[in-house]
């Protein structure tokens, strides 16, 4: 490690300077391990989901539906069979369906087949929907869901980024001058975060859409959508105001209170006193000695909040008629469209996994223990 140094024969080991490539390798190794373990966890989670769904035979319904659909199509398109009456055609279809089901072993116990379905779920081969169709006309569950993903991501990312940064700056401000009136107000209002975002959404809708009529009742863009891209973007922004505000109101006060308390606790540490005594500016002290050590904790709490908020988004989208994944799930529930319901749950498991992974990755970037090689954060 040490290049060309004189080997001093003492019991003291020379301090090893970590070179950047080693840093990167360690990070990479951590990432890959994390990715792998997460993948296994996601797979197990999905398997449990499939088991739960299968207990009522719903997973088989998906497969059977697929079989029947493809056979019906092939029979109706076969010119040699055109002369059959409706009854004969139905009988033929049933017979072929039965043969196919036997071939696929659908009459055998599920445990054996569950793994192939798990494989399907992991590769997002989620079958065909019973009632719903995607906007582009596809009945593939994968397409239906993936089409709905961008609006959800748009809403979620915007809301969470705004919440994160605004809370962070506000918390920093409060930690600097705590005890004043604003501080007391924030502390007093922190219990309001016990209510989920959709709850505030209803109130906001009531006030701004129903009573005042200044903001739209729901949806992502006005109908009919404007042709001009700029107008379209503006319309989307206008429709985002209420849902994002609901999200912010719900998460704001508790976040600010929690982080401000964290900052205060950390800023009372001795090394912060030392830094101040050294003569560093307030800003500098804050950034290096308070923000840096608390960042892993902040990210952990933010991660947990994010995970729980994913589910809240389902109802938020329903309340605001936002054309995303959550509202799709709601409609599928109303229609009893089991392939879509199961597919959505699978996708949510994936999304959670990706979220956890991203946050662990950021955590790794921020937590120096990872780089030093002590294995990263112990659970």
């Amino acid at each position, binding site marked *: 490690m040490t290049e060309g140094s004189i080997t001093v024969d003492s019991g003291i080991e020379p301090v090893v300077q970590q070179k950047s490539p080693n840093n990167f390798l360690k990070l990479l190794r951590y990432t890959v391990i994390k990715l792998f373990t997460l993948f296994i966890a996601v797979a197990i*989670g999905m398997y449990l*989901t499939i088991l739960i769904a299968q207990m009522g035979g719903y997973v088989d319904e998906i497969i059977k539906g697929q079989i029947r659909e493809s056979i019906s199509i092939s029979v109706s398109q076969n010119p040699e069979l055109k002369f059959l009456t409706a009854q004969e055609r139905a009988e033929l279809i049933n017979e072929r369906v039965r043969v196919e089901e036997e071939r696929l072993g659908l009459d055998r116990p599920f445990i054996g087949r569950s793994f192939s379905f798990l494989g399907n779920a992991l590769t997002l081969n989620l079958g065909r929907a019973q009632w719903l169709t995607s906007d582009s006309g596809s009945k593939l569950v994968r397409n239906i869901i993936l089409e709905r993903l961008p609006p959800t991501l748009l809403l979620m990312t915007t809301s969470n980024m705004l919440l994160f940064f605004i809370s962070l700056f506000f918390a920093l401000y409060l930690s600097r001058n705590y005890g004043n009136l604003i501080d007391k107000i924030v502390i007093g209002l922190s219990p309001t975060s*016990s209510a989920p975002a959709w709850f505030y959404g209803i109130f906001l809708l009531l006030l701004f859409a129903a009573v005042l009529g200044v903001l739209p009742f729901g949806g992502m863009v006005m109908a009919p959508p404007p042709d001009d891209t700029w107008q379209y973007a503006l319309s989307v922004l206008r429709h985002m105001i209420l849902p994002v505000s609901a999200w912010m109101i719900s998460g704001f006060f508790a976040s600010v209170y929690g982080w401000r308390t964290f900052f205060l606790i950390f800023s009372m540490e001795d090394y912060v006193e030392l830094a101040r005594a050294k003569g560093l500016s307030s800003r500098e002290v804050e950034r290096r000695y308070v923000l840096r050590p608390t960042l892993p904790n902040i990210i952990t709490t933010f991660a947990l909040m994010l995970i729980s908020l994913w589910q809240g988004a389902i*109802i938020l989208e329903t309340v605001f008629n936002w054309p995303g994944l959550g509202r799709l799930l709601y409609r599928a529930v109303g229609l009893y469209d089991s392939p879509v319901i199961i597919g959505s749950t699978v996708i949510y*498991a994936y999304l959670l996994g990706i979220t956890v992974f991203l946050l662990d990755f950021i955590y790794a970037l921020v937590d120096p223990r990872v780089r030093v090689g002590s294995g990263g954060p112990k659970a």
Partner: protein
Amino acid sequence: MKALTRSFRQLLHYPSAIAGILLILLLVGVSIYTLIAIPYNEAIRLWRGGEDVWGESPRTARPLWLDWITADKKSQTIVINSASEEDGIDKDVTEVAEDMWDIGMVFEFDYPYDGFPQEMIVYFTATFDEKNPFVSMTWETPDGRQFRMSDTDLAPAGSYRFDQDNRLARRLPEGLLPQVALFAMPEVDPPTTVKGTYRLYVDGIVFEEGSDFDAKLVIFGEVHGLAGTDHRRRDITLPLLWGTPIALTFGLVASLGTTIITMLIAAMGVWYGGIVDDLIQRITEINMLLPLLPILIMVGTFYNRSIWTMLGLIIVLSIFGAAIKNYRAIFMQIKESPYIEAARSYGAGNFRIIVKYLIPRIIPILIPGLVSGIPAFVFLEASLAVLGLGDPVLPTWGKLINDANSQGALNNGYYYWVLQPAVLLMITGLGFAMVGFALDRIFNPRLREV
């Protein structure tokens, strides 16, 4: 134990906690009152019942208290029943011809309201052998105008709806519903009510001796009850009242169950260490990847929506959550304490150590989490109900919001339908959260400095 009571007394130093406790006591009081005043079976009957429950109740009527704060007087429901003694309707029986008797009744009432009724129905019941009675009615306004309704044959039980009488509609001023036209001043726009005494003359011809009929005039008002009514004419005070014990019980049981079981599992993991600990860690990681709400939705759609199923499932899925890591960290600390070592040296069994030493130390940490967790579960149950997956039988707050949403309450201006359960949810959430926050500051001394 004494330390705990001392800590709880510290709660009283925090004004927010006192407010929270008051709110909680209010809710508990309402729950107890509700459980005594409206027993469970009665509540279910009222919530699902038939015409005897709803027959005299208007559809989507506003609460009475809304009337008190607005200037004009909205109409209230008026019921006059010839069959009931206290309404004092006399039947005037005269023999008109051979085998024909005329039974005459006069329904008289005062109408002091500015608003018009929503609906008007006359319910008839008749007793006869073969020939059904024949009824004609005349409406008289305070200023002496008269309107003749279409004549009706009577069945053993039936009703006459004023707004379905086409011939009457033709006789009334153009463009006005009967319930408006019969009460409005002539030629006045916008329609204004004529206040005073109205009369409905009901004359029935019966063709058999001993035949009789009764009529119940129901004029449905615009306001009804302390909380209004919903689209199925049910009084909203019922789900508002009954939702309270349901929400409180659900939140408490879920939070308590989750906290206790989590704590037990964390304790066992730390104490037995090794494989057990690792296993619990892995299970926690996997469980945190399971999306709670979608799974609840899946189970609710496919299997069973009963509140007990949901409660059990929620507890099972919440046990292996983030809290386990916190408890584990604390247990690790405690495990190294000298008195634990002392206990092992005198030969205490594992179980005894866990129960007598580890657990009591962690109870102070549990309590804030327990209390703060209750609102989360209450809102989770409400969320399920809003999505349409609530318990199909029970009247809950979430069900009210769900009904309101599906009936377009916000679009149609029935704000009370949404606001009342929302306010109650908010009170519940705030009450427990405020107490939870204060408890957090008491039991986590580090937070007290700030």
